[in-house]
């Protein structure tokens, strides 16, 4: 006996959802999606701290956090895309003639709306995160400025030099005391360079005749690499130097030793 009444009634949304979820391809897609999401989350959390150099400042920590969390947040989106792709890939047809036609689904308005809304939300989240982080940096820089250590950085083809006006010394290595804010004033003697103290997570171009300023506070002791991140001609690759974030005592000793040499390293 066939129950005609039941067949003629349109399915309720609940029935449609449960019918959708009971389909084999849908369940497989969900499993694949969960798998890819987990892979991306694990990669994001593991890869960047593993690859990136020592974190010697809050700015660097913020940079690394953004890379980790943006990967984690985008993991479900990547999961959906890769799951659908993988599901259809596994369902492939091989041979020299095309398979028979699939369903004639030209669009699905709710899906388009949901997809667009989710991507807008994702972007707003990323934007707010970025803006807040930028603002934190800016506020911190402004508060710290009065008691900051000032270092005037000059980039020239192909070396960095650092002038500490308060200490009256000029050096080729960048030594900084821990937990004291630093203000870098950067300028170029010739072409564009880009001042990049790698472990501090800040960077700005050195331009001819215009000073650019960046702020940071080293909060851990460790070795610093200073590189040039803007192609500046022949020996760009070798335009690098090193330095230290060290205790205040060590820093003062270092300053005194340079001063004893006549103020230049």
């Amino acid at each position, binding site marked *: 006996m066939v129950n005609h009444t039941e067949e003629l009634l349109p399915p309720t949304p609940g029935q449609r959802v449960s019918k959708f979820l009971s389909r084999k391809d849908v369940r497989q897609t969900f499993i694949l999606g969960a798998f890819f999401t987990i892979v991306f989350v694990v990669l994001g959390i593991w890869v960047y701290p593993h*690859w*990136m*150099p020592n974190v010697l400042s809050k*700015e660097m920590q913020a940079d*690394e956090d*953004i*890379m980790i969390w*943006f990967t984690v947040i*985008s993991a479900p989106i*990547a999961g959906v*895309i*890769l799951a*659908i*792709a993988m599901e*259809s*890939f596994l369902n*492939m*047809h091989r041979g020299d003639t*095309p*398979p*028979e*036609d*699939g*369903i*004639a*689904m*030209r669009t*699905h308005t709710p899906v*388009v709306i949901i*997809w*667009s809304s989710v*991507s807008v939300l994702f*972007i707003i989240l*990323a*934007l707010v995160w*970025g*803006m807040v*982080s*930028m603002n934190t940096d800016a506020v911190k820089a402004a508060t710290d400025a009065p008691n900051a250590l000032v270092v005037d950085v000059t980039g020239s083809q192909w070396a960095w030099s650092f002038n500490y006006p308060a200490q009256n010394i000029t050096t080729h290595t960048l030594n900084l005391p821990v937990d004291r804010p630093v203000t870098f004033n950067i300028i170029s003697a010739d*072409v*564009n360079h*880009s001042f990049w103290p*790698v472990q501090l*997570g*800040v*960077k*700005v*171009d050195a*331009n*001819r005749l215009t000073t650019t300023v960046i702020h940071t506070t080293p909060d851990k002791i460790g070795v610093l*690499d200073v590189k*040039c*991140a803007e*192609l*500046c*001609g*022949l*020996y*760009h*690759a070798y335009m690098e130097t090193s330095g230290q974030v060290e205790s205040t005592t060590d820093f003062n000793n270092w300053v005194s030793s340079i001063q004893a040499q006549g103020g230049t390293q």
Partner: protein
Amino acid sequence: MTTLSHAPVSTRPIPNPKRSLITRLNMGTGIIVGAIFCWGTYYAMRAGRDMTDSHNVNKVLLASMLMWSFGFLVGIGALIGPFRWLIGKDLTAEEQLYLAGDGQGVKRYFKYCTDHKVVGIQYLVGVMTMLGVGGTMAMMIRTNLATPGSHLVTPNVYNSLVGLHGITMIIAMIIVATGPFGNYIMPIMIGARDMAFPRLNALSWWVLFTAIPVLCSAWFLGGIPTGWTAYAPLSDQAGPGMNAFLATIIIFAVSTAVAGMNITTTVIAMRAKGMKWNRVPIFVVGATISVALAIPAFPTFMLAMIQTGMDRTIATGFYDANVGGSGWLYANLFWIMGHPEVYVILIPGVAALMEIAPVFVRKPLFSYNAAIAGFAGIAGLSVLVWAHHMYMSGWMPSLNGPFMITTEFISVPTGLLFLVLVGTLWRGRPWMKLPMLSVYAFLWNFLIGGITGVYLSDVPADNYLHGSMFVTAHFHYTLMGAAFTGAMAGLVYWFPKMTGRMLNERAGYIAFWLIQIGFNVLFLGMFMAGAQGQPRRVADYAFVYEHSNMISTAGAYSVGIGMITLLWAVVHSWRNGKIAPMNPWGAKTLEWTVPYPVPLENFDVEPIITSDPYGYGKAAN
């Protein structure tokens, strides 16, 4: 349903322009006249000038290079038409038919030929040559970077390799889909008999052709030390090779403008009867949006280069801070071109894959409107994002926030492109041929490229990542992983229509996997180097980056072998491949309704369009 609107081509009078000058001109005469113009200018300008002054050297070289280009166009007969207009006439019908290459066999590929199919093949061979040259440079770069110590080349050669690899690939990738397929396939797809301006079409190719020797000459003039971005003041300081770079861009910008206008006009004005805007194949829409975006972008680049040229020849100092100029002016002009330009490259590749996916999944394209919205949204936003390349330049930190907003919002239309492709795959049973495989490669590569793009658009993260290998890996994922994959799929897909033969499948699969796996190893390794803190464009690096660079180089060799395999497959199949049926993929677009060789004016009978070309599938259960 179709109607007869023109007599078939074959009944037209056979031309006999034997005695006319037009028949004697070809690529050879172009090169001879171009060389005469070039060397004539060189010796005429050298006379009496103090050639120890670099300004004079720059003047002479720039003028000689531009005169080469002009001379070539005179020599190949590009100016015969405009000259006739000057004396109040035009080409005769016979001459026009001759210019279209009627009955000239292989010779027409070396002439100023107005047939869009000939121009398409010329672009295809040109693009493959450029990709080969640029790829060889990439292999040299990766070989040099395999181990620390820069053993292969000197820093000067390395910097030139980086710059010339960059600009060669950028030029090749801009035309990689719109050149061959936009010219050969697109007019047939919309049911047109030729492009709107056939002579401009030939002009766009031959102008581009003249840029190739100019760019090559950079190598012999001491190379370029600036990378393809050619930032001032480094470019002011650079040696004579820089002139070749400037001249190349100026010439290329002319070619792009001409081609862009031509393709846009053709699509707007010459679609077949009944091909309403919602029935236009998606590749045509993508190619049109791409070239329309190039029309405002490239003049900015040309202007930036003209100003660099003026700084270098007559010391105007636009970009020289010492006399009141600003390098930031250059950076702005460059990136106002530079960011739309990456979408000029990307969109046709994606559009080709959107054209391919429905054919092989045998389902309609999912949400045609979302695809259009995606392309249009990207094109619209892309002109407002340029300064994200300058977050760390110090130009205007207060604008970093606004540019971050526009940049991140471009992910929304980009997300729609993903939706269209995965929606087309959804519940499908894909016919796993080579073009279809590229759709999957694209989804993976562009996903990685897209997510890393979001980090880079974020100002605090860019503090760390700007100018590092991470950026290099990111844009290779989008330009090579996405756009090149799309173009390669297009090549395999349209190969039967362009050559009459099927591409060798086995070699194609081998090439595909070597390229795609190698590509991912190469650039995932480069992401690692970037995250570790290796700056980009360095000839040498510290030992900490040893492993990531070795991984990259290993991947690069796989890509290299894959590319050679692909080249072999193309050349071999072109000559000896299996003869292709008229519609090997069972597609519904118009290009598969014409035979090979495609007749001179494509359609004996003008087609009439009654639906879009995605009418696959049966009703859903």
